[in-house]
């Protein structure tokens, strides 16, 4: 028995378990605000997951975004140089957040 999720033309002749016709994994073009070096954000923040992860957070404070970027670097080993981390944090705060002195 074979189970197919992403069907390319090569696979159309195979048997299906529950899938009766060709299917494809949808691709979502999550919108990314441009400017303030969004290219740096796109270069690093899409390696391991979609931009949906970022949009889903809603507007968040600078400490929150700083914490998130640090988590990506320290825990998940995102290969982002220090100065680019700062660029990304500034971008996120400007487009998907707000400034506060402390707290979340």
């Amino acid at each position, binding site marked *: 028995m074979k189970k*197919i999720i992403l*069907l390319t033309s090569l696979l159309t002749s195979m048997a299906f378990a529950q899938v009766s016709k060709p299917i494809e*994994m949808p691709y*979502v073009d999550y919108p990314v605000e441009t400017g303030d070096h969004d290219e740096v954000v796109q270069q690093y923040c899409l390696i*391991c997951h*979609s931009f949906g992860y970022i949009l*889903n957070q809603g507007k968040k404070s600078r400490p929150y975004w700083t914490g998130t970027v640090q988590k990506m670097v320290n825990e998940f080993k995102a290969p982002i140089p220090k100065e680019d981390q700062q660029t990304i944090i500034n971008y996120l705060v400007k487009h998907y957040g707000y400034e506060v002195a402390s707290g*979340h």
Partner: protein
Amino acid sequence: MSTFNRRHFLGSSLILGASSLLGKEADQKIITETKNFVPPVIAFPEKKPLKVISDRPPLLESPRDIFTQPITPNDQFFVRWHMPDIPTYIDLNEFRLQVQGAVETPLSLSVDDLKSKFEPVEITSVLQCGGNSRKYYATSGQATHGVQWGHGAMGCAVWKGVRLKDILNKAGLKSDARFVGVNGLEKPALDETPHFFREMELDEALSGELIVAYEMNGEDLPYLNGFPLRLVIPGHFSDSWVKMLSEITVLDQYRKTFFMDVAYTVPDNDCECVVSGGDFEYKRKPIAAMKVKSVIGYPTPNTIIKKGSRIKVTGMAFDQGKGVKEVMISVDGGKSWSATALQKDYGKYAYRQWIYQWEPKTKGEYTIMVRAINRVGNIQPLPDEIGWNAGGYQYNAVDSVNVKIV
């Protein structure tokens, strides 16, 4: 991995940007709005349209109205992966579950082996993400880190499979066996990123309630819910319900890993919450048993209903397996409470549906709230009473829905 004669990946491991992930095959391109971002609602393979928090890895949230059915249909069951590199094609002739480590006889089991050589068992159980309902923490207090789920990262299904205990006994445990590690086929984009590896104490693994499931609601597991095998741990949050389960490793000592010891942990105190200071100043413990919870399936928020209608207010309640004792309802924002009628009992780990017949006599705005209590006296906290943790885990405060009677 050599167990596949052909693999496709949901994602690429390179820095290519999202547009190249699926190459030419993906002609279905969905553009979404930026302002006040609302995730698109799209049908993924074997699924009805669900809220797509992320397409890579897939994070699909179920709508609130699934809480009108005690068994969640497979095609509306939420989807939650952690890593972008997921095989999208599995050949059951080649797929094997490896049982290894501190065992007398390592096993390499096909799905057919599991179906033919072991006693099949069935259990109805809620599957809930540890971060389910996380976004509600921010409505009554400080925001929490993690995917901002509504209530739709849970469902209840009938799981059929083989007892983990039976598999371990067939392999034969060595005398130094202490822990059981489980992992599946999802892999990170970068090798350095921690793999999704989970562990449990041997006693838990041998409890007889944990099953390696190959069926969900009478069908093969949907691909996105972990085809062909998934670990089921009734009563527990789903962190260790590993999908596309491919390895069971018996260990003589605990392995420290990010996804066990850092992520999915809460302060190791009675309230499992932050009393003062920072969350990570506390000794940690992994989240495990679920907390008593109830949610409203109908009406959904902002429903407009004609005065004089007879409304069947309904939803689901569950806990860690002690059993729901009572679900109370308020239609006046928590001033007064009435009993609801509990429906059919599908087992102690299943959803328990509750129903309340309501005939609003006057026009206006109403806040419906529900609150469950279980047989050992655990009761849902009110939103402003719930203990806070930085990871936003285990949210179980009283649910509320606003409706308008016209």
